[in-house]
């Protein structure tokens, strides 16, 4: 079996690398994905959807490789706008915006973008290796997760949010995000909830509008409170500094990246319907709790970029496992990729690696190579956006109109509805006021992303168990997740208390 697997992988490398069309589309789609991801308001899902019609005339493996390349590059590209403008290009980059933007404010945007690029590559490439070699095995693990186990996993993310900086304000912020996600039609009954008779609100608030409202608009309003001309030191970049992180940082952050971010990214990526955003959140909060200086996270620490970028890219690769092996998309972008496979007459499932082996393995290898491609193409795009960002930050009015422009158009083009522009304003004003009183913004965004998933799995689990709430704790996987959550929350707290007591005793 293993020989068959390895022979197909080797064959797939030859198929992809020796075919000019495959390589050409890989480069083109990676570049388009990078630009789109780095442009505020265009998400990884949007660019994958936009590219879909253009790939219909291509052979199946080329089309899927192009879509995966665009998706993975856009996931990385999203970190560029998250770092420079505090606008997460995709939901996967919410956590990157926290420390990335703080580093930009300190005049270290070049370093921040180098870190996001390097660790996106590490996460994506290592995630890709796991996907290429272990997809058939991992598919069996993924199907062991039912609704109650999925809910336990989301519960873990929610519990971690409660430990976020801000205490009870973080909890309120997260719950507000969860609540905002319930507005619109109920996915189970189709009943309208809290729409006040507005049909335009039937579909609920759009994710892009909510993210722009939570992150972009409040930041601009905060900047407009102060002086309009700001002195920004022009950063000087040495090529080596833009290519790799320092050796000491790499070694210092290695336990957080390789023992926390990567495994979390892999595990969450493999689970159908969870997606890379959850991986970034869980990895960030777990790593923060196990770091030596958790209080510094969120104020511009390099680890705050390395960890979520590793996790989200590893998970982005991992989402291909349920998509290809089970035919269940791991997230919205992979749902589009799944659709593309079906348009090309390929029915996804475990047999894809047996009866359409050339296609299945070529797609996996293409996904692996797409990480290398964005790593090589990124410097040009990053340099261009760095200079634009520097220019805009010197002139606050220019920055304000640029962000408003991308917010308005980014929100409008998703559904061609003015209600989304109003949603940006409404949520932006609420976030601005709450932000003035130190309510953290990230939990609200995370709550909004996880809210629909949490409700879906909560209701599905209870429906399966005929309303018996014991369903949430009877499965061994759920029990393991709850125990792990409790340990992850309690251990670092005990450790920091012990440390505080020891330092008091020394004094």
């Amino acid at each position, binding site marked *: 079996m293993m020989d068959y697997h390895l022979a197909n992988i080797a064959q797939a490398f030859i198929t992809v690398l020796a075919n000019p069309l495959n390589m050409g589309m890989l480069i083109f789609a990676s570049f388009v994905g990078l630009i789109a991801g780095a442009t505020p308001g265009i998400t990884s899902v949007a660019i994958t959807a936009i590219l879909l019609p253009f790939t219909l005339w291509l052979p199946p493996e080329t089309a899927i490789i192009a879509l995966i390349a665009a998706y993975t590059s856009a996931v990385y590209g999203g970190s560029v706008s998250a770092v420079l403008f505090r606008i997460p290009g995709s939901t996967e980059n919410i956590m990157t915006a926290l420390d990335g933007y703080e580093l930009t404010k300190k005049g270290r945007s070049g370093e921040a973008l180098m870190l996001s690029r390097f660790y996106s590559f590490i996460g994506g490439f290592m995630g890709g290796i796991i996907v290429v070699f272990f997809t058939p095995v991992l598919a069996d693990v993924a199907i062991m997760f039912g609704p109650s186990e999925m809910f336990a996993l989301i519960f873990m993310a929610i519990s971690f949010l409660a430990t976020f900086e801000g205490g009870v304000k973080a909890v*309120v912020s997260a719950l507000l995000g969860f609540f905002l996600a319930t507005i619109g039609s109920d996915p189970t009954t189709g009943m309208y*909830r809290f729409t006040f008779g507005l049909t335009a609100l039937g579909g609920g608030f759009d994710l892009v509008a909510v993210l722009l409202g939570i992150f972009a608009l409040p930041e601009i309003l905060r900047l407009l409170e102060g002086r309009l001309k700001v002195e920004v030191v022009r950063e000087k970049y040495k090529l080596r500094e833009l290519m790799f992180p320092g050796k000491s940082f790499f070694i210092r952050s290695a336990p957080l990246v390789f023992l926390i971010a990567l495994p979390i990214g892999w595990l969450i990526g493999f689970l159908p319907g969870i997606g890379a955003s959850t991986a970034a959140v869980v990895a960030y909060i777990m790593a923060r709790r196990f770091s030596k200086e958790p209080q510094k996270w969120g104020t511009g620490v390099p680890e705050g970029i390395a960890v979520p970028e590793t996790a989200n890219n590893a998970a982005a690769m991992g989402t291909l496992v349920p998509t290809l092996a089970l035919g269940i998309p791991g997230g919205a972008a992979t749902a589009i990729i799944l659709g593309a496979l079906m348009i090309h007459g390929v029915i996804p499932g475990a047999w894809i690696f047996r009866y359409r082996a050339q296609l299945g393995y070529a797609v996996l290898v293409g996904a692996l190579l797409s990480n290398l491609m964005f790593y090589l193409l990124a410097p040009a795009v990053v340099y261009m956006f760095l200079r634009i960002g520097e220019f805009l930050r010197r002139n606050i009015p220019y920055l304000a109109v640029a962000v408003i422009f991308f917010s308005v158009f980014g929100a409008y083009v998703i559904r061609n509805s003015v209600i989304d522009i109003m949603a940006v304003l409404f949520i932006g004003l609420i976030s601005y006021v709450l932000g*003035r*009183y130190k309510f953290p913004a990230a939990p609200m965004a995370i709550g909004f992303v996880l809210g629909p998933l949490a409700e879906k799995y909560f209701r599905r689990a209870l429906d399966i168990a005929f309303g018996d709430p014991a369903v949430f704790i009877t499965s061994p996987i759920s029990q393991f997740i709850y125990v792990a959550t409790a340990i992850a929350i309690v251990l670092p707290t005990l450790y920091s208390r012990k440390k505080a007591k020891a330092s008091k005793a020394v004094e």
Partner: protein
Amino acid sequence: MIGEIIIFLSLILVSSYFLYLAFQLPKVPWLFIGSEVWPSILLSGIIIACIMALVYRIVKKNYYVPPRIERDGMFRVLGTAIFISVYALTFEYLGYFISTLILFSIYLKVLKVKMVTSVFLALFFALLATIMFPVGLLIPLPRGHGPFNEFTSYLLSLFGR
């Protein structure tokens, strides 16, 4: 001091109102978990958390006071909110090109940017929107009504759209 109390009280009041609305949602008899259950759990959570925070702050007299905003700064913040509202309201009627051109020029002038630069920047963003969405990504944008529609359609025809 008063600001933080107002924030928590507002959250309690608004959440209570939505909780009331949640309980008014029609029940579906054959479902174990109706549409109202999940939002009710969340809203109850917000109310409980806010009450706890409020009691803690009142008992401990531990309030957060945000930094004061200058009058000019406050004017710019409110101006931006009004600008986005007007922009959203005129977006479909005037069309994306004309509304961007006019309102961005005015907004930049209000932010004390020179008139010529304001108009140039507004034109740049209107053209950027044209090149990015209807021309580049084939995503339609509102062309406006009546003469505004004719103008935007003529402009787009120059780009082959």
